[in-house]
């Protein structure tokens, strides 16, 4: 279906090849995952398949790419529209019309498909993706998961043979992500659709895929079955790390496989007493929300929220897309004024704080860390932060070097990878030594290495973060708060909350259940201590 032979790609004004001498072929009905660290060329690889690269982006392409027998060299992306459906990282940016049904029809209209065929296909896709109740809704009013489904729908109505998705679940909560992936799984099995997908959160996809294309840092690519690739790759989901830590002969890809393989071990360990770390807060009150209600326009997002966060806690705010997590964060950092109730941070009202006072109280990293940055180079950004926060020159630069060494100070912030940009924003914020650090969805688009460095940055501070990333929460949080419909539905120590909900339990916990361990490290510690 897709054949890459000796493909190399280089972008204009760049010295390094993005992809070098890559050859592989994908058969019909395969589900292929493209993995690699950020900036390794995953997106470029995906966009090569329908010719967006190089036709749309520029760049020099060597070698040949055949898609269903057609070479992408000579044909524009539009000419492959009936063959390849592509869903971008942020579906909202790719929508052309404003109503779900019109959006589904748009691609077919441009291909001059007759109206009755269009009607039939729109119905089919609405049913296939269970979107029919949303057909007349405005796209902007849909939740993230629904938008992602519409985006997949717009590709499927064209009856493509290949579906290409770039991080389809990175912005979704675990439940919505599960929904999207199970739809993909069904399409592969029922319609023999070929699916190529890039994803950082491997734990979500690994059990569905047939093969993996792994691009490593020096743009070497390997292709193989998940077992082969994951046996020794640096990037691996927690479940694979668990298998390696336990010296299992093969790596398990699903919780079911791993439970079978760890059965003897678990029966031995079941006699052990539970080792639960006592993580109850000891510090003084830092953030106090008292019957807080917030909203936009006529919509009330938070109702009567009361909450206290103590010094030294790392609190994770979890919940579905649109549950009110971001609103809660923004009211705590003082970006929105509450309708009722009050917010105090360290006894002060955050809404009317300015300048360095604010910076020393609260450090806030928004969903797009680049919103904070406006300098022309990393160096300029850092010295600006030193100035703003009235600290000794070089403080921010030193912080950055400690967080993530090896960033050239002359780079433009735009040219940094997602992980590097987050580190830069973090060091800018942390240079003021804020009492509270607030992060909104920090792991979106981060690979495992960047995530690991984030985890070390968060330790030993008072942190509040909103996230969908269960594995990050298991790793770093001391306390978890669940929000649904603007109300707190669960609040307690990480261990207790994560284990009580199957959708939000990390993989290691699912494998080792009923033992209360969340991470590979927990398991290893217990085994070392007791065997």
């Amino acid at each position, binding site marked *: 279906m897709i054949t890459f032979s000796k493909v190399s790609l280089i972008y204009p004004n760049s010295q390094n090849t993005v992809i070098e001498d890559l050859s592989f072929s994908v058969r019909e009905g395969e589900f292929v995952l493209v993995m690699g660290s950020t900036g390794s060329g995953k997106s470029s690889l995906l966009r090569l398949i329908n010719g967006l690269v190089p036709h749309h982006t520029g760049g020099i392409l060597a070698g040949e790419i055949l898609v269903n027998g057609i070479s992408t060299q000579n044909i524009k992306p539009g000419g492959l529209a009936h063959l390849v459906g592509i869903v971008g990282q942020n579906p909202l940016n790719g929508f052309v019309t404003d109503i779900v049904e019109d959006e589904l029809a748009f691609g077919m209209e441009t291909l001059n498909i007759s109206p009755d065929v269009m*009607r039939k296909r729109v119905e089919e896709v609405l049913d296939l993706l269970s979107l029919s109740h949303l057909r007349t809704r405005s796209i902007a009013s849909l939740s993230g998961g629904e938008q992602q489904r519409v985006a997949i729908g717009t590709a499927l109505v064209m009856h493509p043979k290949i579906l290409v998705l770039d991080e389809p679940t990175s912005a979704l909560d675990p439940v919505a992500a599960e929904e999207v992936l199970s739809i993909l799984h069904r399409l592969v099995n029922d319609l023999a659709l070929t699916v190529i997908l890039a994803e950082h959160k491997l734990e979500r996809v690994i059990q569905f895929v047939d093969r993996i294309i792994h691009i490593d840092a020096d743009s070497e690519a390997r292709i193989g079955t998940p077992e082969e690739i994951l046996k020794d790759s640096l990037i691996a989901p927690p479940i694979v790390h668990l298998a390696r830590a336990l010296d299992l002969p093969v790596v398990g890809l699903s919780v079911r496989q791993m439970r079978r393989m760890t059965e003897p071990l678990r029966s031995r360990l079941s006699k052990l007493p539970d080792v639960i770390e006592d993580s109850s807060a000891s510090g003084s009150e830092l953030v106090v929300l008292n019957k807080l209600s917030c909203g936009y326009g006529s919509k009330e997002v938070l109702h009567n929220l009361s909450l206290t966060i103590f010094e030294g806690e790392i609190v994770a705010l979890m919940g579905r897309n649109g549950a009110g997590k971001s609103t809660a964060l923004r009211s705590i950092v003082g970006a929105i004024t509450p309708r009722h109730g009050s917010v105090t941070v360290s006894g002060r009202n955050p809404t009317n704080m300015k300048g360095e006072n604010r910076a020393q109280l609260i450090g806030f990293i928004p969903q797009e860390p680049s919103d904070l940055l406006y300098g022309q180079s990393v160096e300029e950004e850092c010295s600006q932060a030193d100035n*703003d926060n009235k600290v000794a020159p070089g403080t921010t630069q030193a912080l950055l070097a400690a967080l993530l060494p090896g960033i050239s100070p002359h780079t433009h912030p735009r040219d940094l990878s997602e992980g590097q940009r987050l580190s830069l924003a973090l060091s800018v914020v942390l240079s003021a030594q804020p009492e509270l650090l607030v992060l909104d969805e920090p792991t979106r688009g981060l690979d495992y290495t960047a995530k690991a460095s984030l985890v070390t940055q968060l330790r030993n501070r008072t942190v509040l973060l909103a996230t969908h990333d269960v594995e990050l929460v298991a790793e770093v949080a001391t306390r978890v708060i669940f929000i649904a419909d603007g109300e707190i539905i669960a609040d307690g120590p990480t261990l207790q909350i994560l284990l009580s909900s199957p959708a939000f339990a990390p993989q290691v916990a699912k494998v080792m259940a009923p033992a209360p361990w969340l991470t590979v490290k927990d398991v290893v510690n217990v085994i070392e201590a007791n065997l």
Partner: protein
Amino acid sequence: MPMSTPLHPFLWWVWATALAISTAKANSVVLALLTVTATGFIVVLKATPAPWRGSFRWALKFGAWVIIIRVIVGVLIGVPVPGRTLFVLPMIPLPSWMAGIRIGGAVTAERLLATAHEGIILAAIIAFLGAAASLTSPHRMLRLLPIMVYEIGVVVVIATSLFPALITSIARIRQAQRMRGQNNRGIRSWRKMLIPLLEESLARSLELAAAMDSRGYGFSRKRSRYRPEKWHTGEYAITCICILSVARPQYFLVLAAIGPLFSAPARSVKTLRGAIG
């Protein structure tokens, strides 16, 4: 029960144009004000929550400025109108060949009223066009346009979908920078914001263009239409009232303004009958 199908997008422009012509023809402040009020009701009742919904409000604001400016200009410059003098402004001497025109001078009640009258009629016309803009989705309009102008249409799609996004981005970035402890006043703060904003808008436009490209846009010269928009009885009836109003504005203007209301009751009567029987 399906939602009542929205009226044809062209109808709203026919309606607004007819109201504008009739108002100009009737030349009555009372009628104009009544019609604008009626139009306001229609906008409140019929507009869908969409970024362009605010057009009517903007048109009203703009209209208010038009009235103010028209009155100021009318009072300062113009031909003398005889009548009761309210106050006298100092006159600026003009060369003799500009006889008949003067700047400043006596301001009579008649002159004030006449300029206010003109200003109100003008503002009303702007309000009608604003109402039509609030009531029609530019995207639906574009799908009705002939394929020849479709290229231009795409530019408009990108612009119309980017503009609301731009507004939200500005708010978001300013907020984030305020959270960093930045001062939000002055030109310097706008310069700081401009960089992330331009980057984001550019990236977003490229992404949209790429999405349109990969969905086959512009590949085929012919383009089919999903669910063609049709002109139904309701649309015909409203057009008739609009024609009547252009012919005899003094009788039919207000009726034409609330005309679009009558397109729905026919359906609700049917629903009611269905519910009873």
